[in-house]
């Protein structure tokens, strides 16, 4: 896939599998005030979660010897959080099978109602992405002090309500 180079990426479509949005299991998310320079499995449930304490002024924990203060943050109203993972090319056929299998298990009735996109939107060189988890809130951590209302993230979470106004259709004359 990488060999296709930049141009291919521009042309690619990344199809989000709709079924995964319905099936995504609840996920627990923490946004840390540090960059951990690795992606991969980590025993969060053994090292981090049991050490979280409810202090007088919010949540407390320590990570790598540094003290963190945190607060639970809800996603903006009307929104749902998803964790998504792109499928590898080698995995794709398998993914397709998985997908058709699970839609069958949804029941025959549903199958007929499923709307197929008008024409083939999926091409051979496209990629696929699926939701692996969903969430309605996460824990926002600050280094030594709670992130508070002035945290950049807090401001960012207000974006959808402003975006709605900018992109709403204008009134006709």
């Amino acid at each position: 896939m990488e060999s296709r180079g930049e141009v291919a990426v521009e042309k690619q479509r990344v199809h989000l599998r709709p079924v995964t949005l319905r099936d995504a299991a609840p996920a627990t998310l923490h946004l840390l005030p540090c960059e951990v320079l690795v992606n991969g499995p980590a025993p969060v449930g053994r090292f981090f979660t049991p050490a979280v304490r409810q202090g007088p002024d919010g949540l407390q924990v320590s990570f790598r010897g540094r003290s963190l203060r945190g607060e639970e943050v809800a996603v903006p109203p009307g929104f749902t959080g998803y964790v998504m993972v792109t499928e590898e090319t080698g995995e794709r056929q398998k993914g397709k099978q998985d997908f058709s299998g699970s839609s069958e298990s949804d029941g025959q009735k549903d199958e007929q109602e499923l709307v197929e996109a008008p024409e083939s939107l999926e091409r051979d060189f496209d990629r696929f992405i699926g939701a692996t988890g969903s969430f309605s809130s996460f824990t926002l951590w600050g280094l030594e002090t709670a992130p508070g209302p002035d945290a950049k993230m807090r401001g960012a979470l207000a974006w959808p309500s402003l975006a709605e106004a900018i992109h709403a259709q204008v009134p006709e004359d």
Partner: protein
Amino acid sequence: MAWSQPALLLSPLMLLVLTTPVQLSPDYHYFGEKGEGDTWELLRQQHQKGPMVYAICYCPLSRLADLEAMKVADSKTMSESERDRLFAKMEENGDFVGWALDVLSPNLISTSMLGRVKYNLNTLSHDTAAGLIQYALDQGVRVTQVFVDTVGLPEKYQERLQQCFPGIDVTVRAKADALYPVVSAASICAKVARDQAVKNWQFVEDLEDPDADYGSGYPNDPKTKAWLKKQVEPVFGFPQFVRFSWCTAQTILEKEAEDVLWEDSPTQDREGPERITSYFSKGPRARPHVPHRYFQERGLEPATTL
């Protein structure tokens, strides 16, 4: 906040002594009036991991000879069983020797020392000692003399404590735990308490099989070093039991664990050079589009990759 929960930090034994004033307070009062006062001792124990225990021991001046007769000595020169025996003896003689502890969790030590505003171990020790003295004063004990084993420069430490407690005669010495029986007694209390704490440590973390054999906890103990190396988790480092601030722990983390960057991490040259070259490689493009300040202030930018 620090001194808001002294009762919690006080050992039950100390409470016992203080809550039976009918038997004890006349003695204190008496000796206090004599102008010689009680003797206080402090001691610090430093370890690679586990909590830091501060102990004070006190004894009416008139009973100092009795304390000496117990043959208390520097805890480091004693075996564990000897220390335990002497500690038991001190408990038996609660009518003239009392003690109190302040236990600083390793997590507190790590977060203090690694904090944005560095709170060094010496200052932490000094403040804890001062806190213990103050606690005794608050309990109504008439303190007139204080002997302290030094942490850092004895002169400065003495000056600091003297300023905090102008009415008390403060003596800070190196190796005070070998020179003054009361300091020796305190050193025994601290060591016994710390050993107990380490033995009965309850890991905050849900460790599958914490290897209990972590040695003495002293930095030069090969057992301790090996334990640290074995325990290191690539993302989380060590359990909170370990003082992350400790040099040995830091070295092991640097080698064995994933890199973690904080906003106050010392240097991040990784940014600099890359940034400069990227200006050149971007070619003739004019100044890149600067998003509106609404987006800049909220860290929002158009997504360009997935």
